[in-house]
């Protein structure tokens, strides 16, 4: 009898884990349990479908359950696993027990809910399940006013999308500047301006006090420190919290963020049990402090590692340097590792190298200013973080910088890096080089000023 692998969760990490496990070991019997009816869709695309930048929701479905079945997976859709017995090696779903030899948990995340009065009213929307999003999209046709709550990037994306859809959008957050948990003020400023250009009313430093409902039990206003904001819907975009209820029930070790502790093979504290995606914590490459709530691409890669290892391979996952990026209105911001604010909070010493260049030859139509800010370790000038903003090419630069930072690149390396010069796609003088050169010049000046 072939070995049985059970994967719980049908998001990016679960789907990747099941697929790769089967690919690595075709003799493995792989069963995937998901509480949802759909598989392999892009939840990250939901805001853009609401904003009509993606014309149809069906474009977000990348594959079908049937295709996975044809690939040899035992797909149990709309089937919630309610219990796991590690001693007997069984999972319980729909009151039936299923045996397993190996288990991968990919139970994802739950949205943080605001602890204020009225948080249980109808009309409070959380972006997650695509079926719910499709229903919500139809409701949007009859809505005029939305309040978006929370300063994480989904809130920014949803604000832009709803404004494009023609709604009157109020964005509120307690922080002193947009995305202050992640972004520095100089990067937040153009991002906020881009949202405002779309018509979003951005209210920073605004506290959520509660939700007020109408006679129908549906939210009609959001009470804030800036007054009452009338609305047809409130979109809540607070933090992602690891969904560890099953993991806790079987006694898996949780870490300092309340997420499942794994090693570099995605192994949990229980033998024969792996975990991947939003329910685990992984170390930041710079500090080795565990972090959680990363991107879909991280979840996908972790799922691949867990799946391969459960199938008998020996793959490792590196500590993360977290390239990130997204659109705020029509503007792109991004970064990797840490920015000034986080470096300051962690007390990590740094020097800053800043520069502004262009994304392609300045005479070529479509050239956009590209702002680069790099953080380097004093002395060695080793790259430890950065934030960028502008138009095209921000994403690729952030990916590149995260990779070279992981490999120990310094400002010297970047100042003399090679780059592509081709007028339609790249400028003669790469913006990263400009920032690094400026940083070196600043560093040299500072050294000259030190008395002997």
């Amino acid at each position, binding site marked *: 009898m072939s070995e049985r692998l059970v994967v719980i969760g049908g998001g990016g990490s679960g789907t990747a884990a099941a697929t790769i496990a089967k690919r690595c070991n075709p003799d493995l019997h792989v069963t995937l349990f998901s509480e949802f009816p759909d598989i392999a869709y892009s939840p990250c695309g939901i805001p853009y479908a609401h904003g009509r930048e993606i014309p149809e929701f069906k474009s977000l479905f990348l594959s079908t359950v049937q295709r996975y079945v044809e690939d040899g997976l035992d797909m149990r859709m709309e089937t919630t696993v309610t219990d796991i017995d590690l001693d007997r090696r069984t999972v319980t779903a729909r009151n039936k027990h299923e045996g397993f030899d190996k288990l991968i948990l990919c139970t994802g995340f739950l949205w943080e809910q605001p602890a204020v009065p009225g948080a249980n009213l109808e009309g409070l929307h959380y972006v997650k399940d695509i079926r719910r999003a499709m229903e919500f999209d139809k409701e949007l046709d009859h809505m005029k006013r939305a309040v978006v709550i929370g300063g994480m990037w989904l809130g920014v994306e949803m604000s832009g999308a709803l404004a494009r859809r023609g709604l009157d959008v109020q964005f509120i957050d*307690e*922080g*002193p*500047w947009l995305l*202050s*948990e992640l972004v*520095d*003020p*100089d990067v*937040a*400023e153009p991002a906020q301006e881009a949202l405002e250009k779309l018509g979003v009313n951005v209210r*920073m*430093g*605004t*506290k959520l006090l509660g939700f007020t409902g109408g006679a129908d039990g549906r939210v009609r206003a959001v009470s804030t*420190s800036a007054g009452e904001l009338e609305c047809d819907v409130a979109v809540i975009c607070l933090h992602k919290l690891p969904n560890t209820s099953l993991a806790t029930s079987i006694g898996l*070790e*949780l*870490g*300092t*963020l*309340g997420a499942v*502790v*794994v*090693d*570099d093979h995605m*192994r949990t504290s229980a033998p024969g049990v792996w975990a991947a995606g939003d329910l685990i*914590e*992984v*170390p930041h*490459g*710079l*500090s*080795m*402090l*565990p972090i959680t709530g990363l991107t879909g691409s991280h979840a996908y890669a972790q799922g691949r590692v867990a799946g391969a290892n459960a199938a008998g391979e020996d793959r*490792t996952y590196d*500590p993360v340097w977290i390239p990130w990026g997204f659109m705020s209105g029509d503007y792109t911001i991004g970064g990797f590792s840490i920015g*000034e*604010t*986080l470096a*300051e*909070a*962690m*007390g*990590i*010493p740094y020097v800053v190298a800043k520069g502004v260049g262009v994304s392609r030859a300045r005479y070529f139509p479509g050239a956009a200013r590209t702002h680069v800010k790099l953080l380097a*370790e004093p*002395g*060695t000038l*080793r790259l430890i973080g950065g934030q960028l903003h502008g138009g095209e090419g921000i994403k690729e630069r952030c990916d590149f910088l995260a990779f070279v930072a992981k*490999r*120990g*690149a*310094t400002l010297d390396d970047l100042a003399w890096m090679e780059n592509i010069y081709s007028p339609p796609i790249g400028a003669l003088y790469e913006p990263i080089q400009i920032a690094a050169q400026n940083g070196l010049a600043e560093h040299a000046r500072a050294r000259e000023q030190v008395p002997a």
Partner: protein
Amino acid sequence: MTAAELKRRLRQRSEYALRLAALKDVGQRYPGRTARSALPPVGPFWRFLFVPLFRRVPWSFRRQAMRRLNMTARGWPEDARHFGEPWRPPARSD
């Protein structure tokens, strides 16, 4: 409260206190670009004792201390490149 819960709470509170202090300091470098924060303040212990003390201790020492307290990840290879150390190629097994 278990040791794990204590560590979780310690991390949560200390991070929040340090974040508030950093938001204030970094915000001052960019005058006119920030609003008045509505984030709930922290108590005097965190504000007047913990944050200044944390900032006085060198990063390398702090990092060691976090490691000793098992606040950093375990079961992961010690980072290939220590902070402050130039890059070196991965060890070859052959």
